[in-house]
């Protein structure tokens, strides 16, 4: 069974890269263009894992996680934060927002896939 | 573009052989879109003498050149018996009027010889290599050299 990933990023380029990388690794990918779109897609897509950018218009990545964790649907889904920041402050923030993990941009394809495989049990 | 590299001896290349200006030439088959009978063209004013005009090829405006004239031989007076070879390099489609088309010639890449350096006339420059066939010698037309992409008026 291939896991279904919801990738939320306002950058077309990053969306394209994520889609290419994840589809190559055998995942099904749905993309969303900002936080609001992401949360809306999350309601209908049976995502096994969510990857979200932090800095986005309309609703940022932490807002997305908050909505997911507070929502009624699939609230315990693993959520990875995709960010250019790193360091303890990020970890702290991601943690408090309820992220499962984080990936630092630019991401390494293999590392990304291996983390996702681990978090989805595939 | 296909280079006729002697080192790649395994490679099999197919050419269409043709006659222009009374001599044998050939064009690599991958560069040929189709071969059709001569049909009247729309003349272009102020064009070089080897440009016969343009034809409508299923909605595209395609220029037709007299290959013999382009190579420096005397111009052909086109008749029903003459043939147009529609060639495509990159995005450009150009038709070449020739006297006749003979056959498809398949050769191993190592049969292609470099063009001996002679004086640089129009036909020598447009020849990418030669293939000895029996007593005859068939010259390979380089469409790149024949039809340079940059024109004086290109912006």
């Amino acid at each position, binding site marked *: 069974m291939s896991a279904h990933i919801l990738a939320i990023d306002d950058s077309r380029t990053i969306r394209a890269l994520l889609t290419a990388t994840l589809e190559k690794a055998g995942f099904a990918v749905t993309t969303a263009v900002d936080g609001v779109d992401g949360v809306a897609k999350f309601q209908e897509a049976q995502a096994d894992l969510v990857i979200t950018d932090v800095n986005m218009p309309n609703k940022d990545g932490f807002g997305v996680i908050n909505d997911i964790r507070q929502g009624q649907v699939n609230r315990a889904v693993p959520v990875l934060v995709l960010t250019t920041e790193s360091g303890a402050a990020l970890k702290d923030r991601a943690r408090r927002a*309820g992220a499962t993990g984080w990936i630092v941009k630019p991401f390494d394809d293999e590392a990304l896939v291996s983390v996702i495989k681990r978090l989805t049990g595939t | 573009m296909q280079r006729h590299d002697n080192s790649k001896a395994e490679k099999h290349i197919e050419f269409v052989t043709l006659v222009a200006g009374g001599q044998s030439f050939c064009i690599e088959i991958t560069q040929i879109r189709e071969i059709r009978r001569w049909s009247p063209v729309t003349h272009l*004013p102020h064009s070089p003498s080897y440009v016969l005009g343009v034809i409508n090829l299923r909605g595209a405006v395609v220029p037709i050149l007299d290959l013999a004239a382009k190579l420096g031989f005397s111009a052909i007076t086109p008749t029903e018996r003459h043939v147009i070879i529609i060639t495509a390099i990159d995005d450009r489609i150009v038709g070449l009027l020739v006297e006749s088309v003979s056959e498809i010639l398949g050769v191993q890449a190592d049969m292609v010889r470099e063009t001996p350096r002679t004086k640089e006339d129009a036909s020598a420059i447009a020849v990418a290599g030669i293939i000895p066939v029996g007593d005859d010698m068939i010259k390979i037309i380089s469409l790149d050299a024949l039809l340079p992409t940059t024109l004086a008026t290109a912006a």
Partner: protein
Amino acid sequence: MMDSAILDAFFEECEDLLVALSDGLADMREGLADDETLNAVFRSVHSIKGAAGAFSLEDVVGFAHIFETVLDDVRSKKLATDEALLRVLQRAGDILADLVDAARDDLPADRDQVDPVLRELESFLSTDDLVKEEFVFEALTLSFDTRDSGSEFEVSFHPSAEFYAAGNDPALFISALHDLGPCTVQVETVKLPTDLADFDWTKGYLTWHVVVADQKNDLAIREIFEFADDLCALKVHETTKDDPQPDVMSLPEEVETVPEPDLEPAQAARPSTQKASKKSASTLRVDPERVDRLINAVGELIINQSVISQRIEEASLPNSSELYGDLDNYKLLAREIQEGVMAIRAQPVKPLFQRMLRIAREAADATGKDVNLVTEGEATEVDKIVVERLADPLTHMIRNAIDHGIEKPEERAKTDKPATGTLRLTASQRSGSIVIEIIDDGQGLNRERIKEIAVSKGLISADAQLSAQEIDHLLFAPGFSTATEVTNLSGRGVGMDVVKTAITALGGRIAINSIAGQGTTFSITLPLTLAVMDGMIIHVGGQTMVVPITSILETIRPASTDLAQIGLDNQLLRIRGDYVPIIDLAERFGVTPQSASLTDRVLLLIQTESVSQCAIAVDDIVDQRQVVVKSMQGTYGQITGISGATILGDGKIALIIDPDAIAAGQGNALSAHIRAQKEDAYATT
């Protein structure tokens, strides 16, 4: 291959982001910026950096990073946006655009340009900001355990409520440990409530003990817990050694945490107020090739429609036939489809104009002039190809206007002009055409000088009597501009003739209007749609050709009293008391007209850019109808006097003539000149 497509998408996205950046900075300059503007500006740079990182575009990433850090301080109000900062941000925006351009063209960054701005940006940052950058990576604990055979590690973890809340599943951790080596797993259930009614599934009650064999060290194990080591009381220790391992974990209190509502970011619920229009509407990205195929198919449809019209006409059906009504509907539908398809390719000129702002700033800097470029009509939409092909001509003309048109501040001070010159770049739609104007308030064209140059280049004879308009048009003559005439700035190996060629290739025209001391206006008129135009079908010397209707004022069948002659061949048409020159199209194209006498032929009175009016003599007028314009660019190159070709109802090709080129005052000499060049180009194979 896939990567190059994504890379293309990246550069495309950069264009959009740079426009957003430029818009935001403009709002900041005008004091219109709210928090969302600042966020958007920050995000633009941030997104460029993020995506550039994926392609290892180090120059872009490095610069964007410092830029972004400054912008972050701006949006968090650590930095006040004063004049000096705004100027640097503006420059930084330009540099970022340059860096993206350089990356696209695979060129090295121009460090001479980049570094000073980088230093300026850094001057706004606290040492704190800069130092933070030195430590972007988390330290790794390296273990230099080199024992060859594996040892056994015991992993104990007690997930907290937060562990579950963050989307973790213990089973997945255990299965990941299994992948490392043979495991034995035990679960400790002592913390389960005895009464299941007290059970709260969001809490953690269980502790797992997993013994993993054959491990060199604990790195792989810790990596599995990379994201969760603070969410579960994690203990990892080697069982073969007896020392207890209290080092790693701090046992977090088991607290009932739900994500705190106050952590919801400020942006989450933002009123969409006045900026709503700037948000991009939902769009569909389509491979341009598919659109091109559709456009070609629609072109065929229109040709097919004219074939059917012709057939029906030939069938001479009774006028009452319903077929005529049906045919009209068909025509309408075909036109509607065609307009719809062309609209797909329409794009606002805004990104193009934004680029010109940058060009103007650079040109002003380089020449030491004060210039304010004002853009108008940015929302005007034109075909994608037009946007692409106008970039170079506009760049050249903007540079020219600043270099040659607008005076230095000290010179302007001597007149009553303000020290800052104004350059206006406008786009508008006027009766079926797009008009783009470049208007400067500079000194106007120096016609004496233009004439001198034209004489010295042999373009005109020294005693030529030329009208002001004709002199202005010498600028477009091939071979007019050369390195000695243009300065470093505008002289990039191209002249106005290239501008004119590019615009003609788009089916457009260019006009000059210059008033000494007051400035110069260049007007570019482009057809609204590239693919279809209204044409008059004519015959010349047995050939069928098309003249664009837009340039025809009227058609005249001259009586001999309407004609006059100067010299041997120069025919004139007398019309309403005026005389206009007659150009014999047959003669111009080297074909034989059907009749030697002009009274047997038809004259098309043409309004042109270079000479005010002229009459083109043709053999006959056949029809007036829409034609599909086929470019001859890709296949043949430009032919003087011909702007393209079309395919008629009978499948034959008709050339579309360019009345401007035909009428050009110096017509014959010029076309001979160009012809010579063309012959050269063909000869130099």
